[in-house]
């Protein structure tokens, strides 16, 4: 058999096929490069050639303004990042808890299920801004002995709201696991809790990972809403700079920083989605 392989010579037709495929590849690369260049030139000419370009550059892309506002905006962004870190962890835990409670079986758990369901209805429905106002301005008005700081209260508001969304994402994942999986686990002698822990949740979480990361990207931008209660986040810092000089460059700076902050999360999301798709559908077939 080995000698047969060594003496293999592709036929002329096969050589022709290979050459044709190579030509096609080169051709598509050339076309892609060509159309990219054309679009790039059109965009540059259209944007910089537009009669308003000078005004736009002056009002939105002023390097001096960008430099002056950069440090305060970065300081504000640090607050966003800290809040994001704690709120992301807290809302994931809360969401998971609520989802598990909402999917409990058995009549005895009806009140728990009802409460969990009511929670997801209420907090997904309430605008985040209102939750923040009530918690950050209303709660301290009660003058309780241990009123936490505005940041903690705002963090609780964010966690409550995002916990609602995330709970539903988790629930979708849990319910997407086929009932035969539970049945098989229970027939092996696993308890309900063990079934959830070792069979259902691992599959559920894997399936909804892209949706979860999506919510985290959204949370990344919403943590800044806490600035209504006084703390200066990146967008507020940009607003202060903008109000001072009536130049919109600080907003662009803040926007760019937020995009930079979101890129790692988005890359991870794409990677996880791709990997899940490969594993679940087409692995080994290509």
């Amino acid at each position, binding site marked *: 058999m080995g000698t047969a392989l060594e003496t293999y010579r592709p036929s002329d037709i096969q050589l022709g096929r290979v050459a044709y495929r190579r030509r096609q590849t080169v051709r598509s690369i050339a076309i892609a490069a060509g159309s990219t260049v054309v679009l790039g030139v059109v965009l540059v000419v259209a944007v910089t050639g537009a009669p308003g370009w000078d005004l736009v550059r002056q009002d939105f892309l002023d390097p001096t303004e960008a430099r002056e506002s950069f440090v305060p905006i970065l300081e504000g962004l640090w607050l966003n990042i800290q809040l994001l870190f704690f709120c992301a962890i807290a809302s994931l835990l809360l969401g998971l808890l609520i989802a598990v409670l909402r999917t409990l079986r058995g009549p005895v758990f009806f009140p728990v299920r009802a409460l969990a369901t009511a929670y997801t209805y209420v907090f997904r429905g309430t605008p985040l801004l209102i939750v923040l106002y009530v918690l950050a301005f209303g709660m301290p008005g009660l003058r309780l002995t241990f009123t936490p700081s505005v940041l903690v209260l705002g963090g609780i508001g964010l966690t409550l709201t995002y916990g609602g969304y995330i709970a539903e994402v988790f629930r979708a994942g849990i319910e997407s696991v086929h009932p035969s999986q539970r049945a098989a686990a229970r027939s092996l002698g696993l308890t309900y809790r063990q079934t959830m822990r070792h069979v259902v949740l691992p599959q559920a979480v894997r399936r909804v990972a892209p949706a979860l990361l999506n919510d985290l990207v959204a949370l990344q931008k919403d943590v800044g809403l806490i600035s209504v209660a006084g703390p200066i986040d990146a967008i507020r810092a940009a607003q202060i700079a903008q109000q001072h*000089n009536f130049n919109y460059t600080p907003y662009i700076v803040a926007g760019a920083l937020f995009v930079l902050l979101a890129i790692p999360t988005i890359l991870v999301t794409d990677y996880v989605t791709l990997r899940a798709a490969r594993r679940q559908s087409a692995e080994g077939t290509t």
Partner: protein
Amino acid sequence: MPPAPRTRGVLVAAFATLAALAACAPQKPTPAITPTGSGSPSAAACTPATMQTLTAGKLTIGTDNPVYEPWFTDNKPENGQGFEGAVAAAVATKLGYANSDVVWTRVTFNNAIQPGPKKYDFDINEFSITDERKKAVDFSSPYYDVTQAVITTKGSKIDGVTTLAGLAKAKLGAQVGTTSYDAITQVIEPTTKPSVYNNNDDAVTALKNGQIDGLVLDLPTAFFVTSAELDNGVIVGQVPAVTAQPEQFGLVLDLHSPLTTCVSQAVDALRADGTLGNLTSKWLTQVANAPVLN
């Protein structure tokens, strides 16, 4: 060879983009009208018939919603009560508008001074005249000299403080985009970062809740808040001006508005005939006796 249909589509889209961008190009700004010099229109030109207001024959005046004493009363700017309500009414009368020809519109504080088209002929909203703001809007002659003041609640950390240095460790708050905020960052310069609020109502709530030690407001508002909105409010003192110039309130007009000269003339006339002085003593009497922090 003619381009393939698909390529042609791309080209059409590209040109459409170009055309769209050209269509939303800004119009040439109207030439600046310098309010000073011999070219300024005479008082005779400032009549409802000749003034280019938003609606011909009507004068549209803007202010925030809600508005408070002592500037307005009952959140009704059209009643001519309160200092700014009365000033606006006096300016309108001076320009020859009957009460029925004055239209009030509501514009939030921060939006009123953004560049771009305005929905008012002039806006009266305790706007201090600053060089930065002059890049975005026109100001009339000043109608009131103002100072910033720090307020707090009885028994708070800064109750009884008499110097600026005494405020160094305080957590202070102000409304975003105001000269009150500048007074904190440029004059008081506390070590703790100030809290910034969308409006003074939020800031007052935060003060009530003890989330901030003190709040910086213009002095007349400080008197109103401490007397009417807070049960145990006290004025700590006045803050010296940010610049060597005294801080002054002016009416806000669109940048290069053709009305700026007329409105300024009206304000000047009101100052000259004593109306402004009378209105100040009628509505802003208590203001004189707050201690100055140094």
